[in-house]
C-alpha cells in the first residue's frame, strides 16, 4: 500500500520491543500525509546489523496539535509534522 500526499492515515498503536523511529506521542493518532520523502533502509533491522532491506517508504505526516493533546495551549491551527515509515501507517 502506498499513500499519497493529502490522504488521511492513522499511526499504528502497537508496541515494538526493539529500536524503531515512531515516537510514542503519535501512536494511535490520525493525521494527513504531507510529503512522501522516498524510500529508505529500514532502521528497525539495520539497527541490529542487517542491511535494512527491503527499503520502506518514509512519509511526513501532519497532525493537528489538538489531535495530539487536548489541552493544546493556543493556536487551533498549529500542527506537528513527524516522519513515519509506511509500515507504521494505516489508511483511515
Amino acid at each position, binding site marked *: 500500500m502506498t499513500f499519497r500526499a493529502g490522504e488521511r492515515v492513522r499511526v499504528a*498503536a502497537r*508496541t515494538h520491543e526493539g*529500536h524503531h523511529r515512531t515516537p*510514542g506521542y503519535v*501512536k494511535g493518532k490520525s493525521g494527513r500525509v504531507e510529503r512522501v520523502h522516498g524510500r529508505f533502509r529500514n532502521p528497525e533491522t539495520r*539497527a*541490529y*546489523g542487517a542491511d*535494512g532491506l527491503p527499503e520502506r517508504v518514509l512519509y511526513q505526516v501532519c497532525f493537528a496539535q489538538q489531535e495530539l493533546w487536548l489541552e493544546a495551549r493556543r493556536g487551533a491551527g498549529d500542527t506537528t509534522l513527524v516522519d513515519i515509515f509506511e509500515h507504521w501507517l494505516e489508511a483511515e
Partner: protein
Amino acid sequence: MERAVHDRGVWPTDMPIDRSEHELADWELLTDALVSALSSEGLMNVDELRRGIESMPPDEYERASYYERWLFSAETILVEKGVLAPGELDARLT
C-alpha cells in the same frame, strides 16, 4: 503505553531549557570522530549507534551527557561485534 527513556516527546517535565553554550571538548570531538570512522569502516551505522544509546539503563541515560551516550553505544556495539573483548576498555584504563 510503556515509554522508552529516549522517547522524550511530551515527556512530563517543568525543567527550563539551559541555553548556555559550550564548545565541544577534545574528547567529545574525538568520540564523534571515532564513531564516524567506525561508520566509514562499516562497523557501526547510525541505527546501531542509536540502538546502543537506547540500550543504556534509563537512569544512566538521563544522567549521561550527549557524548557519554555515544561512547557507551560505541563500546556496546564493538563488544557485540567482537572487536573489543568485554572489559577490555576498562582494563586499559586501570
